């Protein structure tokens, strides 16, 4: 038996789905979190009758007439797939808006159970809903639920099971509407809302009226203020980085890396009689490389814990409101903010969240730009360079996020210009969730879930990549073991060598190790850290003080890399703002549905990453030493060539627009004549 979970965005569908199925799908208090249909079996303790029940979690929709592709999924599923029962999760705190969709679902003829969710919030606000009266009005069972505490779930599933095979009578039926006439459709919608608004006063009693302003509204005035809100947002992000990168994070990381180092030493001791190659492979390549990545796990987990708290308390939704006017000015949809915020966790769900954007051009532009936001995989890279070159300065991480936002804004203007798109008025409507004390337990579970995923990645992709890197570094093309100190004759050095020439304008010298790290970073960004660890023989990047004693005595990580601060920042930006990984490119491909836009996006990201790295290095070196850095001329040539291509494309677009305008004018003149 299939039970579909349908309802408005942020009504609690996925939370209920997780509670019933035991899954751990991502939840968030904004639209765009669930963009795909998901199915799973409901836990046995909810299936009283013994029949297997399958829950189908659908993306949120406000109407059966969808605007966006994820709403289309919901609309199509309930119309075409005909689930056995629909559980319509209704946000009890916003009954009149939610019932619009409910009345449409009831018209389908599929049995519906209304789960009046967030009843606990209503209780606190002194709002009561007579579920019996509502059930009479709608002609279907109504059950009070609280998804977050699994309250009422057994009753709602039982109600759904009892309706299997029965028909559904609709309390409101709309027929004879000419769907090709926009005005008639609007009038029909108004009639539906009138029907809903006749029901609501009969069943709902409010102590607090919506128009009354409360403490939350006053807080929102400050947090969503265009100036103060932005300053607060910057401060909050800085604090998140300070806690995760400079205070709590490194403290936990020190403990972990100590254990990893001890483990490495123990294994090295046990393998004393083994071949030098195997010793090097296991101790330096695998334990060292994977250990270097794992060493940043506490920093990443602390950051995710803090972000989960910010999401749960309702602040992140306010952050989207603060950023919305800024993004609108560059022709992006206000809804673009949500994919960018999601992209700070991982670019892939960020790109997929672009489905909530109706306009195809805005959707593609947003998908292309989402990866400029530093994602979770880039955190170890940021932490490594911040720690090694800038004394754990947390401003480095915050700066990278704001540079990402700046690049998004600049590139959005560029993309619109290239596409010949004039900035038009767009709107952004988001429901601001209630402020609440964030749940430490939920944040802890979220942190653990992400931490586990990080470990899985380290134990699979990073492990395989580091093994390959170590083998390639240990052998030359004649398959002879390379002597210590002669790694530049290895397979890895010869493969990465040509790419290293491209990096000279960014770091100032030919370093195949940096090139190898950048290339492996396209498989998974954490590989940058792992590959650098393997290539330079460093396993502990966390305790940079202790790294003063290295091979070559007195070297620190910075000196081992041979990078100046400007070069380090430039190399960091190159890694952060070029395409993040092949999986993200794959996600872009799925969402763009256009080879031209996909390759344009990849080209834009590569160009921006390269140009940003080049400018930062050369200007930084000029400021520090009074002369430009190595590779200035070739780098400048490359950047100017990219600029020339962009100027050519802009001119071509302008010519095309001018020709179209002339054609239209001529047609209009001929028609007038």
């Amino acid at each position, binding site marked *: 038996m299939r039970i579909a979970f349908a309802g408005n965005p942020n009504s609690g569908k996925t939370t209920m789905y997780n509670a019933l199925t035991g899954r751990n799908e991502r939840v968030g208090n904004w639209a765009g979190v669930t963009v795909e249909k998901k199915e799973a079996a409901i836990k046995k303790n909810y299936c009283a009758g013994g029949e297997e029940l399958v829950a189908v979690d659908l993306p949120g929709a406000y109407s059966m007439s969808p605007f966006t592709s994820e709403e*289309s999924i919901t609309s199509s599923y309930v119309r075409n797939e005909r689930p056995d029962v629909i559980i319509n999760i209704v946000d009890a705190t916003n009954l009149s808006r939610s019932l619009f969709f409910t009345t449409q679902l009831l018209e389908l003829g599929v049995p519906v159970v209304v789960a009046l969710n967030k009843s606990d919030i209503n209780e606190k606000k002194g709002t009561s809903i007579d579920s019996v009266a509502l059930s009479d009005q709608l002609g279907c069972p109504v059950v009070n639920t609280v998804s977050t505490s699994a309250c009422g779930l057994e009753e709602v599933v039982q109600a759904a099971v009892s309706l299997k095979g029965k028909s559904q009578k609709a309390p409101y039926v709309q027929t004879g509407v000419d769907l090709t006439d926009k005005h008639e459709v609007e009038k029909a919608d108004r009639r539906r809302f009138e029907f809903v608004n006749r029901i609501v006063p009969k069943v709902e009693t409010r102590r607090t009226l919506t128009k009354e302003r409360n403490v939350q509204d006053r807080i929102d005035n400050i947090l969503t203020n265009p100036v103060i809100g932005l300053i607060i947002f910057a401060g909050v992000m800085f604090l998140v980085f300070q806690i995760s990168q400079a205070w709590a994070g490194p403290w936990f990381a020190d403990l972990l890396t100590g254990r990893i180092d001890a483990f490495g030493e123990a294994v090295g001791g046990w393998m004393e009689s083994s071949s030098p190659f195997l010793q090097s492979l296991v101790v330096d390549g695998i334990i060292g490389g994977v250990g270097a990545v794992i060493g940043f796990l506490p920093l990443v987990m602390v950051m995710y814990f803090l972000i989960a708290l910010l999401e749960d308390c309702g602040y992140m939704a306010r952050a989207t409101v603060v950023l919305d006017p800024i993004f609108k000015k560059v022709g992006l949809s206000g809804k673009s903010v949500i994919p960018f915020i999601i992209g700070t966790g991982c670019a892939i769900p960020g790109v997929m969240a672009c489905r909530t954007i109706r306009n195809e051009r*805005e959707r593609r532009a947003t998908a292309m730009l989402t990866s400029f936001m530093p994602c979770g995989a880039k955190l170890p890279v940021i932490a490594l360079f911040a720690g090694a070159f800038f004394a754990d300065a947390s401003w480095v991480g915050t700066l990278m996020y704001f540079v990402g936002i700046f690049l998004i804004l600049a590139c959005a203007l560029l993309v619109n210009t290239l596409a010949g798109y004039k900035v038009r008025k767009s709107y952004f409507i988001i429901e601001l969730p209630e402020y609440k004390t964030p749940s430490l337990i939920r944040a802890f579970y979220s942190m653990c879930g992400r931490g586990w995923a990080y470990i899985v990645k380290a134990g699979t992709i990073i492990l395989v990549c580091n093994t390959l890197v170590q083998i390639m570094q240990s052998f030359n093309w004649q398959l002879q073991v390379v002597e210590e100190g002669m790694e530049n004759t290895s397979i890895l050095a010869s493969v990465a060598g040509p790419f290293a020439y491209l990096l000279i304008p960014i770091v100032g010298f030919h370093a195949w190790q940096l090139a190898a790290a950048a290339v492996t970073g396209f498989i998974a960004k954490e590989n940058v850290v792992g590959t650098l660890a393997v290539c330079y023989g460093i396993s502990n990047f966390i305790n940079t003080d202790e790294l003063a004693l290295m091979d070559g005595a007195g070297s620190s990580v910075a000196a081992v890399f041979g990078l100046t601060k400007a070069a380090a920042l430039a190399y960091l930006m190159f890694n952060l703002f070029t395409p993040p990984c092949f999986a993200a490119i794959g996600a872009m491909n799925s969402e763009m549905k256009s080879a031209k836009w996909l390759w344009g996006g990849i080209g834009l990201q590569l160009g921006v990453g390269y140009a940003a790295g080049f400018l930062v290095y050369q200007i930084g070196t000029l400021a520090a030493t009074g002369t430009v850095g190595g590779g200035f001329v070739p780098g400048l040539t490359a950047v100017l060539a990219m600029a020339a291509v962009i100027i050519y494309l802009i001119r071509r677009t302008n010519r095309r627009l001018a020709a179209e305008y002339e054609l239209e004018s001529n047609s209009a003149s001929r028609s007038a004549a």
Partner: protein
Amino acid sequence: MTDIIVVVILAVLIGAALRYIIKSKKSGARCIGCSACECHCKHPQKTPEKPPMAQRAHSEQSPCRCHGDEK
């Protein structure tokens, strides 16, 4: 003897990692152990065609021409 043990352990570890990666990719996961995806990033189902403008219930405030397939 130590070498043999090490090679066997490595083969098991790398083999298990590769098997996991291949199995995940075959089941549709986009990103292996993506630290924010938590295995949610499966390949999307084929999304239905966007319905024509006439079927949309709500009007738009802005004079947009955004409903067509713009390239």
